């Protein structure tokens, strides 16, 4: 679309036709305050805060969030009409708003505070009782609702309807008595519920996990990657006094578009657990790292197939590379089992990228309950269907949440016959007349499907109809571990020595194990018999990178330092290698990354340094940035 010329407060600029006035103003650094508008939701023009004077136009202010720019449009945000309209609306928003700032978690990153300072009247004329509601209401175990603070921007209910396709959050009553409520007062169940905390422009929806934890200016944050699943959403990890205090979304339009799921948002409290292991121990007695690693080396060397190695789902690329070196050297022949992985192999060719889902005309989802396995990819599928008009075919034995759109074609296959159903789709009308990209996303049906055949059938279908495949891995760095060749699938039964890297194996420690060495951050009952316990760093301290399910390498940035006596995993593995007789000498993790990039083609991106630390954001623009 061609650009149009507009003038905003005297600044002349050319912007793409169809861009909204509030977005165009941002390009020249002009803030038009908004509550109900959010760039990921359909505009409604409900809060009326973005009123500006437009000419040519009627002699009344217009909402900038619903008006697209037009050629020759002149926008005035500082004319008396616009300034007064904005200040009046802010005054109305504050009429019933409680004086909670001292106790409200939003303070310091609150758009209502900021806009009132920048655009509102300096004195208050409100002299009377305000509207009261019972507060706070627990909407779920992790989210609290304060109805008095709510400005009824409806971002939360609209997000639920438009983005998450859920109906559990709604509005009760009408007029000034309106309030946000969950259906039938039941706790929110959706895995996507936490995003309403980021969306809420005031302190009405707050995290109960982070409640009263800190003021924004007392925290620092790093731009890192979530470690809970293979999607690799970009997150901000916030720390205060050496503790990981909260996780918020960081917008990456290529992957997550600013949403994260509740697993990534709330499952971090183990990082701050006071019972965390800090020093290595040999049979319960504190030991130095040198002694502990020597003991481990003694226990595992030369065991060949009698040695088992359990690897975690969130093993980093660098750890995987080091394990590859160990398995090619002193630990040759060991059996390896990786946690939580699917049965999917490495892809045979090019795969679909997550952002390409936006352009797909037909989506085929096979053998995967995407809502629980790859939640944010599930949201992207929903967006393609409801906002981009894509058609959706689901092949799954049970109903899935994607069925909520009435046009979804759901083929209920008998478990194990997914590949056959995929082959039948080659003659399906929808696919033959797709008129564009066909995206085929396939999981492993939680083990119910014959994977090699399923992968083959998906690739055949893609070639037949002009599509691309996306294997839906489950473990965080499954694709990276597969590239390094350490995503093991071996059974650990019968091993005599076990090196458990990360949480204990889900099937338990095999009875045959005589020597157990663990690398873990919490004391666990399974590890009581361990000969050597290595105190581990958590994802909040670990340096490294993950490869997400589409093959993108993303670097972690830990917000918390590895404090003595802890050591980071790459260092420990290097020293273990040395104790096992290898000649390893890495000056830092970057040296490992360069070597990995040179040896493993899929890890070539590790040679590129991670992108520069983002500019520190002024605290005034917090996670729920307008």
């Amino acid at each position, binding site marked *: 679309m061609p650009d149009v010329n507009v003038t905003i407060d005297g600044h002349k600029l050319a912007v793409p036709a169809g861009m909204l006035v509030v977005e165009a103003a941002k390009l020249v650094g002009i803030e038009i305050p908004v509550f109900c508008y959010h760039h990921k939701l359909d*505009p*409604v*023009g*409900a*809060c*009326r*805060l973005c*009123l500006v004077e437009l000419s040519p136009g*009627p002699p*009344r*202010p*217009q*909402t900038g969030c*619903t008006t697209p720019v037009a050629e020759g449009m002149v926008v005035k945000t500082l004319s008396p009409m616009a300034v007064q*309209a904005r200040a*009046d*609306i802010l*005054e*109305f*928003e504050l*009429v*019933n708003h409680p004086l909670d700032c001292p106790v409200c978690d939003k303070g310091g990153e609150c758009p209502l505070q900021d806009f009132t300072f920048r655009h509102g009247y300096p004195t208050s*004329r409100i*002299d*009377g009782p305000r*509207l009261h509601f019972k507060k706070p209401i627990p909407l779920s175990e992790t989210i609290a609702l304060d109805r008095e603070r709510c*400005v*009824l921007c*409806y971002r939360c209910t609209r997000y639920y309807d438009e983005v998450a396709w859920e109906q559990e959050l709604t*509005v009760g*009553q*009408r*007029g*000034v*008595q*309106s309030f946000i409520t969950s259906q039938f007062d039941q706790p929110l169940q959706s895995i996507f519920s936490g995003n309403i905390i980021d969306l809420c422009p005031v302190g009405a929806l707050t995290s109960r996990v982070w409640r009263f934890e800190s003021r924004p200016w007392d925290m620092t944050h790093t731009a890192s990657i979530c470690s809970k699943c293979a999607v690799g959403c970009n997150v901000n990890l916030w720390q205060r006094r050496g503790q990981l205090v909260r996780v918020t979304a960081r917008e990456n339009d290529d992957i997550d578009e600013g949403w994260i799921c509740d697993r990534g948002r709330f499952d971090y409290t183990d990082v701050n657990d006071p019972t965390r292991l800090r020093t290595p121990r040999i049979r319960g007695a504190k030991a130095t790292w040198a002694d502990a690693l020597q003991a481990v080396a003694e226990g595992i060397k030369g065991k060949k197939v009698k040695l088992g190695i359990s690897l975690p789902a969130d093993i980093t690329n660098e750890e995987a590379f080091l394990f590859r070196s160990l398995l090619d050297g002193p630990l040759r022949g060991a059996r390896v089992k990786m946690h939580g992985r699917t049965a999917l192999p490495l892809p045979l060719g090019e795969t679909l990228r997550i952002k390409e889902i936006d352009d797909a005309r037909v989506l085929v989802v096979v053998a995967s309950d995407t809502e629980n396995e790859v939640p944010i990819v599930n949201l992207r599928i929903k967006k393609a269907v409801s906002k981009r008009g894509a058609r959706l075919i689901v092949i799954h034995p049970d109903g899935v949440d994607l069925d909520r759109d009435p046009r979804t074609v759901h083929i209920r296959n008998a478990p194990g016959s997914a590949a056959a159903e995929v082959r039948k789709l080659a003659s399906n009308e929808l696919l033959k007349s797709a008129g564009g990209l066909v995206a085929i996303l396939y999981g492993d049906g939680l083990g119910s499907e014959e994977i090699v055949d399923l992968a083959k059938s998906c690739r055949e279908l893609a070639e037949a109809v002009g599509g691309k495949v996306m294997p839906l891995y489950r473990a965080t760095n499954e694709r990276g571990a597969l590239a390094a060749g350490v995503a093991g699938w071996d059974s650990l039964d019968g091993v005599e020595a076990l090196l458990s890297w990360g949480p204990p194996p889900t099937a338990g420690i095999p009875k045959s194990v005589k020597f157990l060495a663990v690398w873990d951050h919490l004391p666990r009952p399974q590890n009581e018999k361990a000969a050597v316990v290595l105190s581990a760093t958590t994802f909040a301290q670990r340096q490294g990178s993950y490869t997400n399910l589409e093959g993108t390498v993303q670097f972690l940035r830990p917000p918390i330092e590895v404090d003595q006596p802890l050591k980071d995993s790459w260092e420990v593995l290097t020293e273990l290698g040395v104790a096992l007789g290898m000649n390893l000498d890495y000056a830092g993790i970057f040296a490992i990354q360069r070597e990995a990039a040179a040896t493993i083609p899929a890890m070539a991106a590790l040679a590129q340094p991670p992108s520069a630390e983002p500019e520190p954001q002024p605290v005034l623009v917090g996670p729920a940035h307008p």
Partner: protein
Amino acid sequence: MAEQRGTVGGPVLTEWFATRDLHKLDVYESLGGYTALRKVLKEMTAAQVIDEVKISGLRGRGGADFPTATKWSFVPKDHPGPKYIVVNADESEPGSAKDRYLMENSPHMLIEGAAIASFAISGHQAWIYIRGEYDLPYEMLRDAIAEAHAKGYLGEHSFGTDYPMDVRLYRGHGAYICGEETALLESLEGKRAQPRSRPPFPAVKGAWGMPTAVNNVETLSTVPWIMRHGGAEYAKRGTERAKGTRMVTVSGDVQKPGNYEIEIGVTYRHVIEELAGGALPGRKIKVFWPGGSSAKVLPGSMLDTSTDLDYLKSIGTMGGSGGIIVMDDSHCVVKAAARLLRFYAFESCGKCTPCRVGGNWAVRTYERILAGEGSQIELGILERVSDGLQNGRCLCGLGDAAGWVIESTMRHFHNEYEEHSLHNVCSVEAALAHA
């Protein structure tokens, strides 16, 4: 009871209302009913229907006063999906009861008009959104639609042609905001009744995303007469710019409240004193709302104002939905305004900030004034709230109307406001106490 005033050539809407059992199809037909629809279906094109209505000068009678033919012409006739006529029978404007009167007397007139309108926009389906409280009109419409189906006037082959035509009913659930056309469409779709942001307008994206024209009951009830007699005949009535006749409801302190059909252009004095019997004995008319509670009030001294809709706009008020509320000197204007603000605050849908908060803030301020706790500050708050409700701040007209009530009553009766706020005195009550 409607009194048929001698207009040029006689009444239009209430022409047959003295006939017993007019609501029955055979009686309606015996007088000439359904001849218009038959002619339209068998002999005319959609464009010709729109032209005829354009000649008539018919404008929307729901309050917005928009030229009907123009509204129909906005509906893209080549749109591949369905196109809808939605009848706004949600009549909730305080003071207005004319639509109910029309539906209870002649439901077939509305059905015929809605069907002709559907034809004009190349649609096959009309929805009548009737407010839930209107039990009797709903039942009568339901029975009338069944009669029309039985006779083949509605159905797959309307009047034996290949043109399917249907009219369906939907009942509202008790909200004034459903009279706003986009909120009505939301409610019709089964969603929470809150207005949509415009553009896009319903003619482009209306009911279920399809092109839709929303028309008032009275507007569509006029259409059969226009098609029978021709648009030019209708245009002989009324004034130069505001053509035809309209229904008004007169209520309040008058001797003969009721629904009347008037020729547009007569004065309010004619309507209130000659048709509705004038003030009650011994009382003087102090203030009247010219077109529903949302129209800015006029003082009793302006009774000679014409009912010409353009003229009313030019003096800053409106003919609205024709609900003329008359108040005499035995009533306190401040109390009346306070009661009206309670209505608007209660009916506010809550979507946009100024109406949701401003309405309630005004109600609380009025309460303080009437409780004797007022001061200059409260008067200032009312002015500022009234300003904050108008001038494009709100998403729909409900907020503006609330603002107009405050502004117009304050303008014409500032002395009463001052008495209450600054002196805690109600001279009206005082006068009554001594009467």
